[in-house]
């Protein structure tokens, strides 16, 4: 982090994007199964308002992100995950 800051101060040009090495957690740990019934796991992949988090936030690879998206959608249908945020739903109720 401190190195990044130093570079910025030196160049004073447009900020360069420094890619962080991200490893997909499902690739590194093959034991984790992406399952629509595992709500505790899936909750980490949706935002507070219930939207699916993008890959740039979750760091999963394309293959597993697709699997996560399918699982979230299944969990939503069977009412294990919300389609929209809870506070918003309360307004409607």
């Amino acid at each position, binding site marked *: 982090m401190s190195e990044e800051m130093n570079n910025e101060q030196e160049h004073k040009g447009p900020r360069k994007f420094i890619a962080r090495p991200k490893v997909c957690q499902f690739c590194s740990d093959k034991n984790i199964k992406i399952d*629509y*019934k595992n709500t505790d796991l899936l909750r980490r992949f949706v935002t507070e308002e219930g939207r699916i988090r993008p890959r740039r936030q979750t760091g999963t690879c394309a293959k597993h992100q697709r699997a996560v998206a399918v699982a979230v959608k*299944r969990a*939503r*249908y*069977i*009412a*294990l*995950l*919300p*389609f*929209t945020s*809870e506070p918003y*739903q309360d307004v409607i*109720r």
Partner: protein
Amino acid sequence: MRKYEVLFIANPDIDEDSLNGVIEKISGWIQASGGVVEKVENWGKKRLTYRIQKQRDGQYVLITANMEPSATKELSNNLRFVESIIRSMITLVEK
């Protein structure tokens, strides 16, 4: 034959006997189509994240079964006409 998961949400107001009756009825349908029921898991009453048919809670039941792929369509159709079931889903179990 492939492995499927049949997950359904039953009305929270029905008692245990009638819930078991519903489970038996579904198992009967699976067996009638040449399938084998592997496991029945009753998750009990859970809060739904949104309202379904004006219900805030539901009784979740998960049935794992080996079935012919062609039998799933009829089963999902049958599930729709059970009044005490407020939602159901049939999914394929990979591997």
